[in-house]
Structures are given as C-alpha cells and as structure tokens.
C-alpha cells in the first residue's frame, strides 16, 4: 500500500515537474513558423525563402534573441500542394504553437491558408508580389501589389524609353495571380486606349514545358505592324523551358521585349542568359543594386549559405523587411501576442536594401520603390528605370471599377479590409 502511494506521489511529482518544464520551455523560446514548399514545382523559388528566414533567425539569436528569449524556427514542407498549405498552417499554429508564420509563394497557397489563419487569429507574413484585391487582418503583405509592379512595368514599356509598345501579349500560369493581374492590366490598357484586338491572353498549367506553339503564336501576333511586348506572369519552373524556347526561336528583346513579374535572379540561375539579354523584370529589389545595405545583406547571405555563387532576389528582400518589422513590432509591444503586435506593426520603418525606407501602412501593404531591370549575360538584372521615391502598395486596384470603391484600413475608424464605408463613425467633427 505504502509502496503504491509512493509510486503515485513520485509519478505525480514527475508529471508536475514535466508540466512545469514544459511551461518553462515554452516561455524560453519564441517560435517562428516557416511555411514554404521544399519540394514540388515551387521548390525552385521557395526553398531560398526558407533559408532566408533561417538566416534572419540565426542572426537575431546571435544578437541575443528577442525580448530576452531565444527564437526558434519551425520549418514544415507543404510540398507545392495547395490544400496541404492549410493543413500545415493549422499544424504550425495549434500543434507547434508558433507566434508568427513566414510563408507562401503562390496566391493559390495564400488563399488556401487564409481561412485558417483568420480562424485561429494567427499572423502571416507573405513575401511575394501578388495580384492585390485582398487585405486580411491576419496577413502582412511585404511583396509588391499590382500598382508597385505590374502597372509601372507596363507604363515603362509604353514610354519612349521602353519602346512604345502598342500591342500586348499577356502570358500566365493558370491560377488566381496571373488571371487577376491580367484582369487589372486589361482594364489599365483599356484606360490607355488599347483595344481588345491588340491584347492576347494565354494561360498554361503549372510546370508547362512545351512552349513551341505559344512562342510561335506570340511571333505571329507581333508581326501585325505594331510594336509588341509580352507581359509574363508565368510562375515556377515553367519559366526555364519558356526562356529556353524564346532563345532558341531567336526572339530578341529589341523586337519583342518580355517583362516578367515572377522571374528573378534565382530563376535565372543555371540558365544561359546570353540569348535573353534585354528581357525585363519589374521588382522592388535587384541583387545588382549598388547600396551598402544590399552589400551587407549579400555578404551575410553568402556566409550563412556557405556558397559565394548564390544569388539574392526580391522575395528575399521582402522576407528580410517583414522579419525586421516583426521583430521591431514585438520589441515595441513587449509581447508576441498577435493583436498587440499587429497594432505595433503600423508605421514600422525598415531600410530597403535598394535605398530609401519601407513603411508598413494600415492596409497591411508596404511603401517601396519600384525598379525595372534588364537581364544581363551574367544572369543579373541591370536597373534601367526606377521610381523617384517609394510607391504605396494599394490593396484594391483603381482600375477595376468594383474594387476602386473599396478601402483597406485596419485602424480606427475603418477597421476593415474591404469596405466602402468606415465601420465606426469617427468622433472627431
């Protein structure tokens, strides 16, 4: 009897101490979730972002962590499988108990995690350029909105320096980002007097590899007597065979320039870019930009990844800015509580790697500069045009009539991501 009691007591003590150490353990670390595909068609782009977050976490710990605690990254692999993104998001928040998640690349993956992160009141930093038309209370969009990438790029191609394009081919992968971006672009082109017969739209599945017909069609479309430009929202590794086919069929940038919104330094690595010189990309960051912040970032990246040849790109910068802003907001709020951190996020400032200062706005989008670059033989981009200052990210496009009326503002009196009127009546006046 006595023995039994003793065992019982011991077990009780043990479980108590375990529970306590559990609490102590949880209190010791701040957990950061990383939700990027490490396999599948998007791995080519997303693996780097996982490494970027790990580098930032590593860096933060070297400086003594956050709020006196160590920061720990929890990495999961949603494998380019969109429903799996939602499952992994739920796992990160409920099982791993993370305080914030950095993740997603394709819009379809973001749309898939959106209900989960809103239901569980999590916080997601989304680091990729996207189609806009969204503002969630639980998501901070550190990539470019269409008015920070697509619209300036098309305006550049319309300008004298860009070649005064009159006919437009909109090529995209068949999912929400290209379709919405092209909808906005079509509306924008209409507003500039371009007729429907001068716009060609074409969609291909993820991982498409046989580009012969489409490239030949583009050539045919371009031979109608007006300067033609291609706007590419092709995503993932389908870009490699696409650019190979462009090179093989001898489409030169002087004749038909291709401007891409999803092709950065990483996608060009391992591709012979000599036949592609002059094709364009619009981003908020290029590795080639000569800036002390950028040099320091690239050095740190090379030291972390232990490979001098690795490139940096725009979504990495967006991840960097997002992570920095989040640490600043956590320090300001003194807690990792999602609601407190969200309030502290508004107005956070971080130096851009390309110069200037990025600011988080109350519509959860950044103010950033826009750069347009041309592909060089060494696989880098050379900036040929940039905005004078920063451009404020616009969640709802002004060129789609029904979205132009909507406002995203998560501060009083609006407190809403897609409203025509403020939720509260302002007391002033």
């Amino acid at each position, binding site marked *: 009897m006595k023995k039994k009691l003793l065992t019982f007591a011991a077990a009780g003590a043990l479980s108590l101490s375990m529970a306590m150490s559990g609490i102590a353990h949880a209190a010791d670390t701040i957990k950061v979730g990383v939700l990027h595909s*490490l396999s*599948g068609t998007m*791995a080519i782009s997303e693996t780097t972002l996982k490494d970027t977050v790990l580098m930032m976490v590593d860096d933060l710990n070297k400086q003594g962590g956050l709020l006196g605690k160590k920061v720990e990254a929890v990495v999961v692999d949603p494998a380019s499988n969109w429903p799996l993104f939602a499952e992994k998001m739920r796992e990160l928040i409920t099982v791993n108990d993370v305080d914030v998640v950095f993740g997603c690349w394709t819009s379809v993956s973001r749309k898939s995690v959106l209900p989960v992160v809103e239901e569980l009141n999590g916080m997601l930093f989304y680091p990729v350029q996207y189609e806009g038309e969204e503002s969630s209370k639980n998501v901070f969009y550190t990539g470019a909105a269409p008015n920070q990438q697509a619209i300036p790029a098309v305006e550049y191609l319309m300008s004298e320096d*860009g070649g005064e394009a009159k006919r437009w081919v909109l090529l995209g992968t068949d999912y929400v980002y290209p379709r919405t971006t092209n909808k906005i672009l079509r509306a924008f082109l209409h507003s500039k007097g371009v007729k429907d017969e001068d716009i060609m739209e074409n969609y291909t599945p993820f991982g498409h590899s046989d580009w012969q017909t489409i490239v*030949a069609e583009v050539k045919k479309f371009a031979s109608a*007597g007006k300067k033609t430009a291609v706007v590419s929202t092709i995503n993932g590794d389908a870009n490699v065979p696409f650019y190979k086919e462009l090179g093989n069929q*001898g489409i030169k940038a002087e004749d038909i320039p291709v401007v891409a919104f999803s092709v950065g330094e990483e996608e060009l690595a*391992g591709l012979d870019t000599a036949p592609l010189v002059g094709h364009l990309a619009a981003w908020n960051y290029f590795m080639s930009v000569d800036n002390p912040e950028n040099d320091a970032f690239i050095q740190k990246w090379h030291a972390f990844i232990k490979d001098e040849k690795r490139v940096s790109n725009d979504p990495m910068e967006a991840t960097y800015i997002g992570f920095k802003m989040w640490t600043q907001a956590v320090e300001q709020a003194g807690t990792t509580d999602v609601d407190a951190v969200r309030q502290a996020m508004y107005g956070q400032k971080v130096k851009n790697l390309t110069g200037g200062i990025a600011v988080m706005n109350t519509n959860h989008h950044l103010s950033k500069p826009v750069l347009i670059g041309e592909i060089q033989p060494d696989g880098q981009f050379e*900036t040929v045009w940039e905005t004078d200052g920063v451009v404020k990210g616009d969640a709802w496009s002004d060129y789609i009539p029904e979205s132009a009326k909507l406002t995203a503002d998560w501060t009083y009196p609006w407190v809403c991501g897609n409203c025509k009127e403020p939720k509260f009546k302002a007391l002033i006046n």
Partner: protein
Amino acid sequence: MKTISTFVGSLLLLLTLTLSGPVAAQGFDELVTDLSAKSFNAKIKAVEKVAETGDDRAAAVLRAMLEGRLFERKEDGKVFITTREGRAYVLTDPLTLKEVGQVKSSTLKKIKVNNRLRGVLNGALGSLTLLSKDPVKRASAAEAVFKNRSADDIPALEKAMERETDAGVKAKMEMALAAIQLTADSPEEIKIAAVDVLTGHPTPEVRALLGGVVQSEQVESVAKAAAEALSDIERRLAFFNAIGNVFQGLSLGSVLLLAAVGLAITFGVMGVINMAHGELVMLGAYTTFMVQEVFRAYFPGAFDWSVIVAIPLAFGVSGLFGIAIERGVIRYLYGRPLETLLATWGLSLILQQLVRSLFGPTNRDVGSPSWMSGSVEVTGGLVLTYNRMWIIFFSLLVLGLLLLVIRKTAFGLQMRAVTQNRQMAGSMGIRTGYVDALTFGLGAGIAGVAGVALSQIDNVSPNLGQAYIIDSFMVVVFGGVGNLWGTLVGAFSLGIINKFLEPFAGTVLAKILVLIAIILFIQKRPRGLFALKGRAVEA
C-alpha cells in the same frame, strides 16, 4: 621605380593625346565622352553622332557599348572600353584603341544600355559594318539596317549592294533598301517598286512593315499595292504556319513516343502496369546531369559530347534499376494487375524521394550542346529549333533499334515467345524468368534514354517523371496495347492533334479535348488503333 616609369609613360601618352587631339580627334573625343550621358535620349543622340563621324574607331566603341563593355571612370568621367579579367578590368582607350592599364571594378561605372538604345546601336553598327569582310556580319548588318529604317543609310546600302557577291546577303540588302524607300519620303513609283521587292520575301518582319504601311500610307496607289502584297504574304505565312504546326506536333509526338516506347514493352508486351515508369525516365535525366558534371569538371572542352556519352549510361542505369524492380517486386505479382499498380506506385514515390534526398528538391541545370541550341530559318516565318529536330530523329532511331532487337535477335525471339505462350516457351528450354527480367530491363533502359532527351527540353527535377506517366499510358492504350507501330502512330497523331487544337483552344482545353476524344475512341475500339488479333490476345 617601375610605377614612376609607368606614370611618366602615361603622362607622355596623355601629353601626346592632348597634343594630337585638337588636330585629329577632338570631335570624336568629345562625342565618346557624351556616350556616358545620364538619360537614354542623350545617349541615343551621342550614338547617332558617333556613328555619323564614320570614324574607324566608331564601330569598336559602339560594339563595346552594345556588349556592355563601355565603362566610365568614376574619378574623371573618362570613357573606356574594357575587358574583364577576373575581378579587374583591362582598360582600352577608345581614342587610340590601345590598352592603358588595369583597374579594380569598383573604380568604374558601367554605361547602361537598354532595349531602345540597343536597337539604335544595332542600326548604327549595321550601317558601319555593311562592308565587313565576313558575310555573316554583312547579313546581320543588313538585318539591322532593315529594322532601323533610317534614310541616312541609303548611300551606304547602295554602295554595299554594288560590291556584294553573296546572293543571300544581297537579297537582305535589297529588302533593307526597299523597307527604307517604302517608309521614307520617296516618289510613288519607287514605293510601289519597293512593295514589289518586299512581296518576294514573305517573313513576319515584312508583314509587320507592310501592316504598318497599309495603316499610315497617304498615297492611295501605294496603300493599295501594300494591302495586296500583305494579303499575299499572309496567305503564304498561313501555309508556313501550318507546316510549323505539323513540325511542333511531330516534336510533341516524338517526346510522347520516347516516353511511351519503353512502356510499350513493359505494359504493352509484358502486361505489367508500371507506375514507376516516369521515375525511370527521371533517372535517365539525372544520369545526364551527372555525366555533364563530370564533363564540366574534367573535360570542359568536350562538353558537346556529354549528351552522347549519357545515352548508353542512362540506358544502363535505368535498365539496372528496372531489372532490380522486376526481380525484387514485380515477379511476385504477375497476373495481379491491381497489386502491381499499387506496388509500382509506391516504388515511384520511393525513387522520387531517393533522388530528392540525393540531389535536392530544386531543378538541376542540364546544358544543351551547341549543336542542339538555336534554330534554322527554313524560309521566312518558318523556324525549326535544332533541339526539337534532334529529338524527332532520336525518337525514330530508338524505335527503329528496338524493332530490330525484337525482330532480328535471339533475345527478341525468346521475348516474343515468352509473352505469347509462357508454358510452351518454358518447355522449349527458354529460361522464362531470365527473359522476363531482361525484357523489363530493356523497357526501363529505353525509359532512361528518353530521360536524356527530355533533359534537353524540360526541367530536371524529381517530379520530371510524373508529367509524362499519364501521357505515356494514353499513347500506348490509344495506339493499341502490344503493338510498337501503334505506339508510333498513336504518339505522332496525338502530338499533331494537340498542336492543331492549341492555338484555338489554349493549352489546357486542348489537353482536355484530346483526353475526351481518346475516351470516346476507346469506347468504340477498346483495343486501340492497331489491335492484336488471334489467340494470343485472349491469353
């Protein structure tokens, strides 16, 4: 000591330059400095002025600018032609075209070039190199002049045409001259004659030019002639376009054929549903990658041969994997298609993960040999890419060799005997298990060879195989199970149908339509295009 002498030397050079400068090259000197202007508009003006001087050095300077080798020295804004040597740059003075030393990259600023400027540079270089000794350069110069369409080039062009001996280059120059005459301010009859000349060259560029003329031309007779020429060219281009579509269809068909022909052996002849077939293709592609890595490291000069060397190796690697799969798994499952399907599906996942663990999830860069890069322009508007042509040829070669093995060798005879009547073959002394393993190995090896070809047009990633497995089954079933000729006809007809649908229906819908057509076809003819007849079918 040496530095002093270099210093004195450069000082002397500078002195002689400044002395000789005002007399001979002051204009050119200033114009070259203008090339480093800030705005692209100013740069374009400077380029035009440099070209106008007709100076011998102009071509060298402009070519360097086009190639991104023209730099400005930060300290004094002087412009240099550079060549990169490691991390340093060798400077060449654009005025003397002599090397003047080496500096670190941080002391220089590149003179940026954009597409518009590149076009102007090409045009300027075009009129400067029309008299080049190299016919290839003259041809590209004529093309550049055609695109540039500047009336200033007419004298240079006429002079070059008089001297031209190469018929092909001369035709290009005629086109360029006609294009300039048509768009510049010339008399009516010259414009109409120019339209006539252009009608003889039905290319997309001419179509674009005429399309523009039809819209903007004021003189009615010229506009009418241009419109007629345009419709004539459009008719011819439509014809070339149809030929181009057939070629693209053949090319897609050849890819399908390569992917399916191995399956035609394992599934068609042996009746094994091998879901890991795509992964055997993928292994072939990774073998190509490995071979290229070896070539890059040890024989960079012979890189063009790497793909050829990879073919037998890929056959061997995938073939051995195939034999291992047959001996290890499939032989226990003969006659149980459902279990085979599940087991090989599992194997495909294992193989994918194996490759992912070994090589990482990201794509591997497989280079193309020079003889597979670029394209040939058969006539204007019909461009055939070399890589596709080689793959069509290669797929037919593989099929031919396979037929030869099956028809003419002892192994082929044993293989046919075993698949037609296993007991009878066994009682005649054929080791049926041995033949099974080799047959499966043959099918797998061919899959590996297909991987070598696919590495040239698709991304080499662990998922490579998955993209082709469905298509391969489709081809084999459509063509008729157990018939290699059926596979050939099936692959090419599916490819061509797909490519003819694509322009109208789009890529996604075209695939769906083809799939629906096959489902309907199988309803009507369950055994495919070329059904096997006779007793063997029922066995």
